[in-house]
């Protein structure tokens, strides 16, 4: 089973930082970044590999399509079993955290700023969950 890590955030600087941390933490060597949620949805929906898992680091507050709309789109598609979402947001609003918990495909909720320790821990958790057993992240 292959997998891919996507980073979705409208802030270019955040995309740069998160990409670096994902690489440095050994989470994934070459994450794909999107500054528009819509493009990330399209990318996932256009995928042809039915075995492939997508791990999405998702911001909430974005123009055009926000994190919630992204979740709705994926949730309503046939591909939702192939998507795991980690919300990464600057929001410390409790309501956002509670709302995220209602989506089964959201596996974690992280408050910005994330650091390398947090991402290493997330990676280990996913390994334990055996999602990465056969993937490149396990090397």
């Amino acid at each position, binding site marked *: 089973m292959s997998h891919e890590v996507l980073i979705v955030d409208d*802030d270019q*600087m*955040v995309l*740069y*930082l*998160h990409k*670096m941390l994902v690489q*440095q933490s050994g989470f994934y060597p070459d994450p794909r970044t999107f500054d528009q949620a819509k493009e990330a949805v399209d990318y996932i929906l256009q995928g042809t590999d039915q075995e492939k898992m997508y791990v999405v680091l998702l911001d909430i*507050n974005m123009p055009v399509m926000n994190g919630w709309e992204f979740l709705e789109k994926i949730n309503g598609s046939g591909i939702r079993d192939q998507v795991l979402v980690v919300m990464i947001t*600057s*929001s*410390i*609003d409790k309501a*956002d955290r509670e709302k995220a918990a209602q989506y089964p495909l959201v596996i974690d909720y992280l*408050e*910005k*700023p*994330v*650091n*390398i320790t947090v991402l290493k821990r997330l990676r280990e958790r996913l390994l334990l969950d055996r999602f990465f057993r056969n993937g490149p992240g396990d090397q």
Partner: protein
Amino acid sequence: MLVNPNPYQILVVEDNPGDLMLIGEYLKEKLSVPRIIPATTFKEGRQIVADQGATLQVILLDLSLPDKSGEELITEMVAASGNIPLIVLTGYGDIAFSVKSLSLGASDYLVKDELSASSLYKSILYSMERKKHSMELKDSEKRYSELFHLSPLPMWVDDLESFQFLNVNAAAIDNYGYSREEFLKMSVLDIIPCDEVARVREAARRSVATKGLLRHGNFRNRKKDGTLIFVDIQSNRIHFKGREARVVLANDVTERINHITAIEQQNEKLRQIAWTQSHLVRAPLTRMMGIVDILKNFSTGEMNREDLLDHLISSSHELDGIIRKINQQTENIDLKDGYES
């Protein structure tokens, strides 16, 4: 029969000395202390009433006096006598008119040729008692009428079928801007906006079905100048001049409701500020924290140190801008602001 020991002061308006003497004799038989004040003309009698009215218990009035007689005499004496009972003394020839004298306001009439000590005494007592009761009733009516008219809260009486205003108090006239005459030509339906008609009819149905006080809640009413106000309506059934009606208390709560709306608007603004705090402030802040983390712990990858520092500076300016904006929003929150809008 026992002699009544109370002191009585009685005005006798009688031009015939023989009749006056006879009346005096009769009174002395039944009253221990009768004080008779004689007068021989209407003019004299009226002067005595004007001077000593408060001390008089009863007036005995002969129907034909040298200066005035008949209907005119009675009408003017009744007007002058006020609270004092007036008993008319009459001869046989005037019996038909004597009956009419009662409707003009006399308390009783006595035919002179049939007069006796006991009939005179009885008539005096009855007349005084009746007058007392009718005065009490008038007093009580006046008190209730004042309760209605002087109430600081707007009140009216309206017909349960036609919604016609049957009475309004001063506070209602003051609050709505319609004169009393204007009110009495209108119905409740004339002072409500169209979309309240169904609720008003429903409230009337409840009033018909219920005895006792009803709270109907808030309604919108329109003043004469067109302003819409909120009134808290309570009503109670009454019979008013033979009609099924209700007395309505219309407490103007517009100001209170405006205050609540203003507070709700403020809460909404505060929610927006809280949302901004949570989402917008932290965006540049977390970015700065991330950059610092990278600068401190890692080689900077594709970006050089200078670029990262530039981002750090622009993020700090962004943060400053947002905080200034929040400050402005907070200053804009003003009770008056919301109240007037």
